[in-house]
């Protein structure tokens, strides 16, 4: 499969803060170099080090365990084939995450040809949109959000909102990077991110335990 886009390119200048968010892992640099030379055990080590993050990223983007496992498999197969092109100008995890994100987006676009256009995926229906509700301070989140509740709420977001929220607020991509990846404007990314957070606030204030969307029953948090 030919994966076009950002995952195989690295910034001309390493992005400040990348290594802060993705600090080097002990033994990782050696494993990368050994893997570049075809060391099979080094590949095993890289899988063991990164499988959880790659899988979780896929799961959050796709909302489906089976698809997430398939894409995890694809991501590591790509990694094994392309690791020679990693030059260490960004953190290895950042590079791998970018590769994974682009694979997932490609997968969704392929699905979208038969299901729903990318534009519709990015812009959820009126029904899914957050309500314009400022008030009701008695229902506010009192300044703290439980991790488990948030994970569950993220899983029940409409796909377009979930995508932008996961990429920005969880994975740390900038709006302009997300815009490039999703082929939309930066303004659209900002707007979708804001709507996603509003929708999450709504979901966290009024949790609906019985209202799990299709395909998310297997998601455990």
């Amino acid at each position, binding site marked *: 499969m030919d994966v076009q886009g950002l995952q195989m390119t690295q910034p001309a200048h390493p992005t400040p803060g990348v290594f802060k968010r993705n600090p080097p892992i002990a033994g990782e640099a050696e494993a990368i170099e050994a893997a570049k030379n075809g060391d099979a055990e080094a590949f095993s080590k890289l899988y063991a080090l990164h*499988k959880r993050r790659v899988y979780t990223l896929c799961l959050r983007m796709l909302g489906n365990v089976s698809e997430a496992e398939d894409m995890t498999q694809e991501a590591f197969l790509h990694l094994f*084939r392309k690791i020679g092109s990693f030059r260490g100008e960004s953190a290895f995890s950042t590079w791998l995450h970018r590769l994974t994100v682009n694979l997932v987006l490609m997968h969704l676009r392929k699905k979208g040809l038969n299901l729903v256009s990318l534009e519709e995926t990015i812009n959820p229906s009126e029904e899914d949109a957050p309500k314009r509700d400022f008030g009701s301070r008695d229902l506010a*989140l009192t300044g703290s959000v439980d991790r488990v509740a948030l994970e569950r709420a993220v899983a029940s977001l409409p796909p377009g909102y979930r995508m932008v929220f996961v990429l920005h607020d969880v994975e740390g991509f900038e709006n302009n990077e997300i815009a490039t990846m999703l082929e939309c404007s930066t303004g659209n990314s900002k707007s979708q991110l804001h709507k996603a*957070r509003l929708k999450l606030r709504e979901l966290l204030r009024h949790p609906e335990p019985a209202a799990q969307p299709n395909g998310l029953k297997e998601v455990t948090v």
Partner: protein
Amino acid sequence: MTEFQSLDFDKMTAADFEQYLPEFFSNGDGHVSTDPRLQTFLKNNPDCAALVRDLEAIADQARSLFEPTEDQDPSEAVWSNIQNKLKQSSAGEDDLPVPQTI
């Protein structure tokens, strides 16, 4: 997204605030509640202040999701499938090594 450079922050309405909020978040490095230009407005509009607090709490907690918990591993089948695929491709043009253990 609309420009808000000429906006009077102290006199804007809640509707103005709602309209510009995505930009405030985007320009304020994710922390609207500490933006000095908005302090008077937020003090006078507690519902808007509560909204900002909630959205900031959601964004802050989202960062903690970056590190997965221990129960978020893919099944063993994923690694087995990778090994099998690599074995298949190693017989072909890629000639990749086949990792055995994790």
